[in-house]
């Protein structure tokens, strides 16, 4: 269990699932959740490389930053979603097509 590949595999599966969510979900919040999964997968990689790949503490610091970013991203994204909802009365991203010709 203590091999890099395991972690990488888990992380890539997690990443793919997140991706799947982003690609298939119509609901903005659900897309956001997919993004969170991807970010977690990335963090997992960082930590895995920190533990096995010689990245050491730097990897952890990066992961920390990613978490910070994720928090910020989530806050802003949700604000946008709420705003969209207020304007369009939906958060279905397909319906938000004002910019479409």
């Amino acid at each position, binding site marked *: 269990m203590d091999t890099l590949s395991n972690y990488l595999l888990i992380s890539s599966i997690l990443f793919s699932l997140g*991706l799947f969510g982003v*690609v298939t*979900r119509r609901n903005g919040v659900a897309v956001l959740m997919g993004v969170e999964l991807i970010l977690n997968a990335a963090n997992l990689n960082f930590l895995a490389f920190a533990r096995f790949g010689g990245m050491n503490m730097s990897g952890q610091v990066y992961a920390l930053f990613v978490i910070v970013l994720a928090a910020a991203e989530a806050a802003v994204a949700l604000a946008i979603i709420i705003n969209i909802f207020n304007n369009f009365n939906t958060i279905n*991203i*397909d319906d938000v*097509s004002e910019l479409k010709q």
Partner: protein
Amino acid sequence: MITGNFTTDACLLILFLPLLAFVINIFFGKRLPRQGDWVSIGAILITLVLALSLFVEMLSNWNYKFSHEVYFSWIDLGAFKIDLGFWVDNITIVMLLVVSLISSMTHIFSLEYMKGDVRYNRYYAYLGLFTFSMNGIVLANNLMSLYIFWELVGVSSYLLIGHWFEKHSAADASKKAFLTNRVGDIGFFIGIMIMFTAIGSFNFQQLFDGVSNELISGSLLTLAGLGLFMGAVGKSSQFPLHIWLPDAMEGPTPVSALMHAATMVAAGVYLTVRLFPLFTVDALTIIAYVGGFTAIFAATIAITQNDIKKVLAYSTVSQLGYMVLAVGVGNYVAAFFHLLTHAMFKACLFYGSGSVIHAMHHSLHDMHDHDTDPQDMRNMGGFKSKMPVTSMTMTIATLAIAGVPLFSGFLSKDAILAGTLSFVQSNPEHWILALFGFSAAAITAFYMFRLIFMTFYGSPRMPKVFDGIHESPKVMTYPLVVLAGLSFFIFYTVPYFNPFKDYGWFTKLIKAGNSAVPGNPTAKEIYDGVHYAHDAAMMLSLLVAALGIGLSYFMYYRKSLSAEAWSKRAGFLYNLSLNKYYFDENYNKFLYQPFLRLSRAVAYVDWDLYDKYFINGFGYVTKILSKITGRLDFDGLDQTLVDGIGRSAQGAGKNLKTMQTGRLQNYMLFALIGVIIILVVQIT
């Protein structure tokens, strides 16, 4: 003095004083008292005095070989040099005197005649320019300066003939005079070029030397001579360029006198006299024919003219023909002699006619009659009693021109006819020249007396006008008296006295030189021939003069022969003569108009065809080409090929439209597919 040499200084002053008068009058004349006429008259009188003193000096020297030449460098490019200068010999001095004298008379005569003219100062200025140019011709020692002054005479005649330019006829006449002269000048210039090319100089003396050294000979020399003669044809109004002279009568009458008696037209004859040594026998023969034909031809026109000045104009043409004839037959001294005598009596006749016209004009003016032509002899008659001086002087001049003994014209005409007769005697195939000469003499006597009889004798044809006729004032009659006096033979034969022989200072001091052309008759041969033919010629000329005068007397004085009946009898010929053989009409019809049309056509071709279609055609072709390339580029390349790619992409896009959902997620998916492909490629 300027150079220290009297002859040179006098010539310089004679040349430039009138020019100075011109400059002063043209710029300041309006502001000077009496509009500056005194400037001009003063200048010309000084000129006259100088010319007279030269003349006196010539007489006192009594040297027929007198020759004086000065020149300065005008152009010097190394090899190409032109020197301009004077060549003074006895011919020059006599000619200077003639020009100054007639010009002075004209200046004085105009004082009254031109009084009150709107452009009085300019008139006097132009007279000065004219005198300057003429003196320049006289003094020239080379073809180039001769040509320069030649053209200046042309332009001053243009200005003077067109003095009353408000009249269309005057404007036309001035232009015609200039252009007709230029036709002659073309030939003149070609002659100059041939001579210069062959000999490399313009100087008369060097040209003569060149010809005698056979640097140029044969038909080329003949051609050159004829070219030079063409200048004379234009200036001296010889057939077929005679058309300008009668029209030039549109100028003020004193100008006609100056121009047609002594200066401009004489220039042509003077040229042939000067250049006589250059002419080959062939050229001289042609010159003789031109002169002889002009003499008779103009005389026949003069018979029927009713305008007093037109008669004199054609008479001038005819007399000039005489002079040219004399040159042609080799007796060029006679030509110059006639030029001299003719200048006096013809000037007198012109002034006389001016006096008559002046009187008529004033009379008609007082009657407020502006329709009657004051120059038409049919409105005159019996003026003798009213204008005794004019009548007398004109009669004297007419006797001179008719060739009556005791008068100058007899001597000179006799010399010409003798020369012609001798020429015909040695060249019988040219017998017609003698016929021309003698019949022209008869006709001249006839029409000149016709003029006198119609004007001064008989009963007044318009009594009302006649009542208003007065003798002209003294400034006009004095010149008449002077010139009439100079029409007597004595002035040309001093110190000898023989009314039937031209033996005198003239023949002593002005001797014919040999022709420079090898093979031409020498001066001695010609002189001997003339001497031999002299008596016969004198008899014949007396006979023909008497014939002409008698006919005129019976027809116009006694009226025992009806002029009307005769003119009807010769209806066709009469009309031909009256209409000057339709020369103007035919020139107009066959030369000017076609040429103008050709010019218009050329301009049309140039502007409306060549430029519009050919040059602009380039523009159009370029435009069309660019349109085609544009279309090729747009339709062919851009629309078909480039857009074709686009359109196929569009078609594909249409098909793949489902992919273009506008959903981010779809795009992402495709991006993902791309990533996978990359990954797969990378891995394998």
